[in-house]
C-alpha cells in the first residue's frame, strides 16, 4: 500500500506503529487520520476526512494493541501497535465488501460511476474476485423525479455521507437512513419520498459526496471515457478521495 505524501515528523512528536512503520500523530487524531496524514492507506468507505466519522462500514477495521477497532473512530495513542494490512484483516474486509455487493444491485459494467467508484476501487485494491455470497437482488426503483439529479438506490452502501453533508454542511436534511439492521435504507425527507419535493440542488455538498453511484447528475453518463477516470489512473490507495466528479 502507498506511502505518498509522507509528512516529516520531529523526534519529540508522539508516534504509533502501523504495520511495522512508525507514524507520528497529534493529540486527538484517529488512527485513520494520522495514517492518511503520513500517506498511509487504510481501506475505508464511510469515512471522508471532510466529515464527522460514522464508523458504520467497518472496512477500516484494524487491530489496535491486539483488539479490533474502527480506525476512523479509534483515537491514536502513543506507542500503540496497529495492524491493518494483514491477511486476516483483509479477508474480513473482502467479506464485508462482498456483502455490500450482494445486498444491492451492482452492475458495474453499465454503471456510469465505474472507474470513479470507491466501492469498486476498494474491491480492486483488496483483490475481491467474486461476490461469493448469493445476491439479494432487491427491488429498488430509481427516483428520477428531480430535474437535474437521479437517485439509484440499487447502489447504496449506507455510508450516510449524503445525509451528513446535507445536515452538517448544507443545513438541509434532505437524506436520512431509516429502518434498522438489514432493513436500513436511504430515504429522502419529503412526504412523497421524492427528491423533487425537497430543496436539494446541484450546489449542495450532498450532491458531490456519494462514493458510489447513487446520487447521479443526469444526462452526463459516459461522457468521460474509460481509461480517463480517477481510479483508472491511480489506485484508490494512492488517491483515496478524488474529487467526486459530476459523473
Amino acid at each position, binding site marked *: 500500500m502507498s506511502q505518498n505524501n509522507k509528512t516529516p515528523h520531529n523526534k519529540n512528536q508522539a508516534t504509533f506503529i502501523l504495520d511495522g512503520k512508525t507514524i507520528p500523530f497529534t493529540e486527538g487524531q484517529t488512527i485513520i487520520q494520522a495514517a492518511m496524514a503520513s500517506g498511509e492507506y487504510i481501506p475505508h468507505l464511510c469515512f471522508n476526512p471532510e466529515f464527522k466519522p460514522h464508523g458504520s462500514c467497518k472496512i477500516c477495521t484494524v487491530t489496535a494493541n491486539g483488539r479490533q477497532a474502527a480506525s476512523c473512530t479509534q483515537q491514536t495513542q502513543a506507542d500503540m501497535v496497529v495492524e491493518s494490512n494483514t491477511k486476516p484483516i483483509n479477508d474480513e474486509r473482502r467479506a464485508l465488501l462482498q456483502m455490500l455487493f450482494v445486498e444491492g444491485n451492482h*452492475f458495474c*459494467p*453499465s*454503471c*456510469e460511476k465505474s472507474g470513479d467508484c470507491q466501492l469498486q476501487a476498494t474491491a480492486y485494491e483488496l483483490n475481491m474476485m467474486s461476490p461469493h455470497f448469493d445476491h439479494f437482488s432487491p427491488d429498488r*426503483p*430509481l427516483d*428520477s*423525479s428531480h430535474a437535474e439529479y*437521479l437517485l439509484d438506490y440499487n447502489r447504496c452502501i449506507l455510508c450516510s455521507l449524503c445525509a451528513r453533508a446535507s445536515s452538517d454542511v448544507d443545513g438541509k436534511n434532505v437524506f436520512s437512513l431509516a429502518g434498522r439492521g438489514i432493513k436500513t435504507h436511504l430515504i429522502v425527507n419529503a412526504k412523497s419520498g421524492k427528491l423533487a419535493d425537497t430543496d436539494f440542488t446541484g450546489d449542495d455538498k450532498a450532491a458531490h459526496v456519494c462514493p458510489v453511484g447513487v446520487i*447521479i447528475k*443526469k*444526462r*452526463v*453518463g*459516459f*461522457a*468521460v*471515457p*474509460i*481509461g*480517463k477516470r480517477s481510479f483508472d489512473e491511480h489506485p484508490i490507495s494512492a488517491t483515496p478521495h478524488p474529487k467526486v466528479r459530476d459523473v
Partner: protein
Amino acid sequence: MSFALETAANPENLRRVAIDPVSRVEGHGKVTILLDDNNKVHQVRLHIVEFRGFEKFIQGRPYWEVPVMVQRLCGICPVSHHLAASKALDAIIGAKHLTPTAEKMRRLMHYGQILQSHALHFFHLCSPDLLFGFDSDIAKRNIVGVAEKHPEIAKQGILLRKFGQEVIRLTAGKRIHGTGAVPGGVNKSLSIAERDELLKDIYQMVTWARGAVHLVKEMHHQNPELYNSFGAFRANFMSLVGFDGGLDLYHGQLRARDESGNILFEGVDYRNYTQIIEEEVKNWSYMKFPYLKSMGKEKGWYRVGPLSRIQNCDFISTPLAEIERRDFIEYSGVMPMHAPLGYHWARMIEMLHATEMIKDLLHYNDIMGSDLMVTGERGFEGVGVIEAPRGTLIHHYRVDENDLVTMCNLIVSTTHNNQAMNEAVRRVAQQYLHGHEVTEGLLNHIEVAVRAFDPCLSCATHALGKMPLQVEVLDAAGQQLSSLSRSSEGTVSTPLSAP
C-alpha cells in the same frame, strides 16, 4: 402458419435426432430432425434454447446507460448494439447531425467491428469446413487444423481480427464493452499516436482482406455445383443502403428486393420500420419470425446480412471492394445469388470494404478533433438502425420526461434470418439426409448451412416474458406424464396441445 417440413403430421412415431448445441456459432441453439424408419425427413427445426431479458430490464433505467448496457447482449458484436442504441438515443437528446469527429469515430468503430467479426467468422468458424470438406475428419475440422495445414491463412485470419479489435479499443476505450459512443456523439477521438499506430498496419490488412475474397471466390469457381446449390432457396432480401444507393453499413434507408432482385420498396425511413415489418411468434422457438407486412407471413419472410447487402446496393464506394462486388454479381448471372455459401463470399467483400473504409477514415484529421457531442431539442422516442456484421439491427426506445426508458424493442439480425435459416436447414436435410443413415459428417452439413448465416443466438434471445414456453415431463420410455405451456400472451395452461 406452418412451412413445409416445419411440423410433421404425425410426430409420435418418428425418430428424433438433435444437434445440440450447434457448434461454431455464437450462442446456444439446436436443430431437431424427425425421421421415419426409412430415414425420410419429416420435420426440421432450428430452435433457440436460451433466452435473456434485455427488453425488460432496460425499462426503468436512465437512457444514457443504455448504449453501454445493451452491449451485454452479445460478446461478439457489442459494438453494433452500442452504436444502434446510441443512434436511437441521439433522437432523445435531439442530436440531429453529429459533429464530423463523432460521425467518423463511430464509423471507424463500426468498421473495426465488421472487420473483427467477419474475420472471426470466416477464419475461425467456417474455414475448417470450406478448406477440409464438410464431412472431413472431425478432429482436424477446426482452426487448429487450419493452422497446421494452412498456417499463412490462419495467421492472416488471426491478425485481421486482432487489428479490428485494436480499432475498437482505440475508438471505444476497450476491446469489448467500451463506452466510446454516447447519445449525441462520442466521448473520445484518436490521438496522433493512436492514428499512426493503426495507419502502420492498415495497408497490410487491405491486402490480406483482398486475399480472403479471392480465396472464397476460387472455392466457388472450383466447385460451382456445391457452392451454388448447397441448401439453396430463394428469398426476399432487405438491408439499409446509403442515401445514394451505395453500400453503407452505418446509416441509410431501408430497401428490400424480391427473390428475382426486383425492388419491393426503397427509400424507407427506418424510423418507420413498424410499418413494414411484423413479427410472428411460434410455440417451438424463443426467436420470433419477422416478415414484410405487405407480403404476409407466407411470402414476406426475408434474408439479411452480407449476401443481401452486397446484392441490394447499387455500388460500393471503395474501389477494391467494388471490383469484387462486380465479379460477384457477374458470377451470379441474371438472378441474385441465393445459395447460403454465397454468404462467405459476400462477407469477405464486406471485410475488404471495411479495411478500405478504415484506411480512408484514418486519413481524415476529423478523427483527431475535439468537437465530440451535440444536443438539441429533447425527444421522447428514438429508433436506431445499423447494418451489424450479421445484418440489419433495430433498436427502438421510448423515454419519459424524467429520462427513464419506458419501452424497448430490439430486432436483431439473426431474428430477421430466422425463417431463412430454417429454410436452409430443411433444404440441406432434404438434399443430404433424406433416406440416408445419419452420420456425424451428414449432420455437420446441417451445421454448415446454419453457420453460413453467422447466426448470433445470444443476440437473438433478448426478450423476456413474451416467449411461449413448453415444459414436458416424460417417463423413461418417452411417454408424456404431464405438461405445461405458456402462450405468447403469458397465459399458462395445461395440458399441452401437440406442437
